[in-house]
């Protein structure tokens, strides 16, 4: 990621920005947590968290942590995209044990990815915004890559 690295001496602009803080947080131990919603009235889970429950129309949807591992349903390696992304990059759909499917960047040598493999949550930089600030987000990586 040469473009990202070249900007890392630029204090102030350099602090990575989480693409969407409503979807994730990074705990003090540097582990990423994916956050969805749970309806306080009917218990329906949503990802991303919705402001209104599509099952019962309750607006009492609270944040809840999502499972940390899942199964890769399908993926693609993208070679052509907006300049904000470091190409080529791998993205895919990860099926979580709570029945939710999450769109995510994947961190692994691309030729090791396969549908059906178990993947776990981590985080990292995947590009930069229009001002050159690194963009950070949640990532899934093959389970055996995890520390």
């Amino acid at each position, binding site marked *: 990621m040469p473009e990202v690295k070249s900007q890392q001496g630029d204090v102030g602009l350099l602090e990575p920005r989480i*693409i*969407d803080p409503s*979807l994730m947080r990074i705990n003090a131990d540097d582990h990423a947590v994916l956050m969805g919603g749970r309806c306080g009235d009917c218990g329906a889970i*949503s*990802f*991303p968290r919705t402001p209104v429950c*599509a099952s019962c129309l309750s607006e009492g949807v609270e944040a809840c942590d999502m499972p940390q591992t899942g199964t890769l*349903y*399908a*993926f*693609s*390696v*993208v*070679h*052509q*995209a*907006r300049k904000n*992304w470091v190409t*080529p*990059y791998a*993205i*895919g*759909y990860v*099926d979580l044990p709570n*029945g*939710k*499917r999450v*769109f*995510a*960047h994947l961190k692994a040598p*691309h030729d090791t990815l396969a*549908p*059906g493999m178990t993947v776990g949550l981590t985080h990292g930089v*995947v*590009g930069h915004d229009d001002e050159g600030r690194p963009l950070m*987000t949640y990532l899934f990586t093959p389970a055996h890559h995890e520390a």
Partner: protein
Amino acid sequence: MQDVFVVGTGIIPFGKYPDKTLADLGWPAVKQAMKECGVNSTQIGAVYCGTALGGMLAGQRVMKMVGPTGMPIINIENACSSSSSALSQGWMAIASGVHDLVVVIGVEKLTKFGGGTLPLEREDWEVNQGMVMPALYAMRAQRYMHDYGLTIEQLADVAVKAHDHGASNVNAQVRKRVTRDEVMKSRMVAEPFTLWHCCPTGDGAAAVVLASPRLARQLGAAAIKVAASEVTSGKFTDGFRDMTWAELTHRGAQHAYEMAGLGAEDIDVAEIHDAFTIAELMYYEAFSFCERGRGHELLASGRTSLGGDIVVNPSGGLLSRGHPVGATGIAQAVEIVRQLRGDVGAHQVEGAKAGLSHATGGGVAGYDHGACSIHIFTR
């Protein structure tokens, strides 16, 4: 409900027209459609204009070029189904007896975005995380290949067929035949798709004139009946979905067949939404042209190629004719109507009596597709 007929058709050659305005793309198609049936703009009860990214009042901008305005002009956005949705609104206006004659336009200018993949809605959380349209279809392709053993070489055959057809269509954007090898070796876009697996971006416009039975008789022009007109939306879920099955298209197809009183076996020619190669095979299955997982067998049999008994995308489809998104639905309708009249040109399907058009699309998180519109035409 009264019958609805297509009495006029118009289309411009699809391509890249960076120096033309949206109105300049649109008016020649409208003029052609009006001339074909001999109507003047004072006879037009209403205009429905489909465009996804053309901006405000596209229909007004086009219609001011071709005569007196003042009729209701309704602009419709439904992503890749914009002008097919407009067609359905036009059909409804006549079927219900509100109007005797309407014009439906599809017009789009994608060159204003300067190339690259289609600009998607950045408020969408998946787009915001890096989703692009080719990757969505690429994942369908990958999972389909995983589940059914389809090979990338077999998938490339879809592009070969599309460009064989498109090469003889004077209105196609890409009129070059390609080999399986050329498809395989072209630039990578989103694995497993190389460039030839993807439809080009560009500009285009098409128009039809719809009429009631009374006005169709009065005009005396060749009339093709709209036997079914339907619009469906995808079923949202943030849970699991079988990406190898086009549920939305299948649901729409069942409804359209029922409305027309026809079955898959009655269709002689179809223009379906092959935005990427895998889409064509999945839609063969969704339209019940073949069983699930057997799309490539049907392609390899030659039945969907010119000379076959269920010719799919004789125009070259989105892959070859091009896919200026909002214009596609009416371009497909023009193609099918001309096929049924027998005056489409070098890529004529001989003796076609029933044809269908299908435009579906919209990359929105949680939907198979956002919208799908299907029409069946008969003579």
